[in-house]
């Protein structure tokens, strides 16, 4: 099947797209504006007509008084907000969809292909509302739901790191992201002694973040340099790093103004500038999803991924086995399972939650005494698990009865479990 394999970094200030290049076996940034892979997350509607512009073109149109601009589209979509332009109320959903349509069109024109084989969106924060809004937008644009994935920046960074040479992540691999929304630090490490091998990434938003416009003056540059240096020393001192990456608009030209910071970083560490890191990580995820067997056989632990395996012991035609309801390392919003069992001399449901790296699990029990009393093995129950975040699982147990011998009541028990 032909089609583009894309990674799309959606932030409130800028967006980027990266496209998987199968010949080179790596993702490449798509130039969304002249000379840059970044495009401002703004949309502008021309006055008097239903015509849209995005990014810099949108800003110019608004400056000329020929259009009305709406920015911070991701935040607006997360709040299910609206914007009124010339008396017409546009939902955030519609604006986001239009924005995506415009930026994807740039990719289509560059590659001469209009089909999308797979696309992964990466977001700083994965909250339910934003996930739903982006998914809805993608489906509105004619992209099959099965071809769309959403991941956090942390996960994109994780994939980006493990796609690099092994010596770059043998020890800690760090990342600083500086943009209008603030300063963020990430690091990834390999958890040794666990099967399958696990790689873990963590994310820390730094309070010391600063507005990028302070860099317009020499004093501001010096202040920025001092802040970065102080953060780096606090976070990285006495730790062994194989590599450090820098990404985000704030780091453009940083070797000129963040002299102390870069000098400190580069001492005994390999430091790389990668402006499209998250978009490339997302493209790697999209490409890997198309393979029969993953190129990264690790258990990924990071924001957006479940940190524990939820299972139960069952008997399958007389053979005892461990049934996995949710696997550690899977995306929480994609993880949903439904299984039907018949309790045999059991008045409660027993689940086991096993964190990664831990041999022993924690037992969770849900009493089933609210279900009608019936002879043994004549109650079929459906167990449905879903997640509202990587740490919060909802278990629903539904009484399915036993055919016409013991009709179902449809009664449901519900419990939330913190992993």
């Amino acid at each position, binding site marked *: 099947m032909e089609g583009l394999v894309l990674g799309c970094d959606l932030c409130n200030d800028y967006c980027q797209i990266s496209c998987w290049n199968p010949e080179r076996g790596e993702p490449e940034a798509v130039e969304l504006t002249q000379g840059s892979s970044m495009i401002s997350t703004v949309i502008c509607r021309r006055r008097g007509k239903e015509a849209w512009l995005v990014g810099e073109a949108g800003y110019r149109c608004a400056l000329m008084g020929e259009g009305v601009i709406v920015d911070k589209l991701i935040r607006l979509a997360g709040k299910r907000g609206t914007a009124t332009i010339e008396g017409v109320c546009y939902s955030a959903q519609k604006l986001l969809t239009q924005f995506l349509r415009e930026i994807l069109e740039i990719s289509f024109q560059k590659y001469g292909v209009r089909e999308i084989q797979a696309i992964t969106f990466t977001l700083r924060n994965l909250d339910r509302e934003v996930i739903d809004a982006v998914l809805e937008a993608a489906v509105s644009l004619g992209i099959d739901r099965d071809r769309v994935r959403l991941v956090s920046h942390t996960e994109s960074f994780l994939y980006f790191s493990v796609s690099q040479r092994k010596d770059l992540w043998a020890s800690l691999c760090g990342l600083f992201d500086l943009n209008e929304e603030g300063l963020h630090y990430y690091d990834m490490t390999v958890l040794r002694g666990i099967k399958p091998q696990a790689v873990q990434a963590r994310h820390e938003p730094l309070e010391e973040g600063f507005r990028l416009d302070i860099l317009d003056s020499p004093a501001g540059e010096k202040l920025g340099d001092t802040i970065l240096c102080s953060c780096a020393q606090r976070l990285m001192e006495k730790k062994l790093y194989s590599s450090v990456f820098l990404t985000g608009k704030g780091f453009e030209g940083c070797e000129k103004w963040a002299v102390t910071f870069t000098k400190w970083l580069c001492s005994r560490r390999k430091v790389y500038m990668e402006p499209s890191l998250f978009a490339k990580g997302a493209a790697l995820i999209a490409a890997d999803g198309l393979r029969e067997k993953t190129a990264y056989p690790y258990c990924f632990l990071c924001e957006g991924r479940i940190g524990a395996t939820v299972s139960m012991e069952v008997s399958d035609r007389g053979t005892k086995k461990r049934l996995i309801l949710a696997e550690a390392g899977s995306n929480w919003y994609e993880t949903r399972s439904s299984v039907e069992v018949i309790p045999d*001399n059991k008045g409660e449901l027993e689940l086991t939650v096993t964190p990664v790296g831990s041999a022993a699990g924690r037992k969770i029990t849900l009493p089933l005494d609210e279900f009608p009393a019936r002879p043994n093995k004549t109650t079929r129950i459906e167990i449905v698990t879903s997640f509202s975040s990587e740490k919060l699982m909802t278990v629903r147990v539904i009484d399915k009865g036993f055919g016409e011998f013991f009709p179902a009541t449809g009664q449901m028990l519900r419990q939330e479990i913190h992993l």
Partner: protein
Amino acid sequence: MSGYLLCSSRLATHPYQVEGLGIRIYSAEELCYYIFHHVQVIGEEFLEEPLFTFLEKELGLAEESAHIRKYVERQAEFSTVLTAILREFRYYSDQEIGQFQGRLDALGKQTPLERQCKRADFLLEKRRVQAAFHIYENIMAGRKSRGSQQFYGMVAQRMAVCCLQQFQYSRGMKYLQAAFQEWPDERILKQLVQVCLLCGKELPEELLKNADASRLYQWKQEYEQSRDLAETAAASCPQAAIFDRDSIRRKEELKRYMADLKKEYREMTE
């Protein structure tokens, strides 16, 4: 044994219909349950194509169906095939299957007449009255002095019960009389006396002379006590409360109650 049995299959969209019992089966586990609890009424016709079609198409269990089919093709004994079905799905433990085999062996030792009678008794217990009556009728029709008089007396008594459950009192009395002639047991006489009291009829003369006066008096007392209890129970049963409802709810609930009664009657007389 305790734990959770993983369900073998999806639920069927079109269930397997058990003829004569009005039972519909939706899963492999229910199939095992039906075999285990209704073995007295399962005949050789159970192992025909509709069962295998159900397993393959409705439950998606083609492999399991093929395993069971092999037994049938090899002309294995009926009891062996039933046990094979239970073993295939493992809904029952080895111990329970052992108990099932024991029951199968006991059934196998019964004469064809006894098996027929047991089948009819089972149907009667499940209130499949008409189906039970037909079997009893066949037993009586095929009578060639193979069974004892007591046996046929018992069959006639059961036929009477079938009639009485359908409020066919005259017919029921006729069968009770026939039963007493075959097998002059006091319990049958007692039933006859009480049916006469219920219908307000006199006990036939030729039977009166068989009854001890004190026993007749005792049975009459028992009948009156049961009648009083039934009247009290009727006054406080949930259905009686329907008549206390407002006109709209009364109408709806009466309609529902009538529908339930009709369904029950249809099942009885299938």
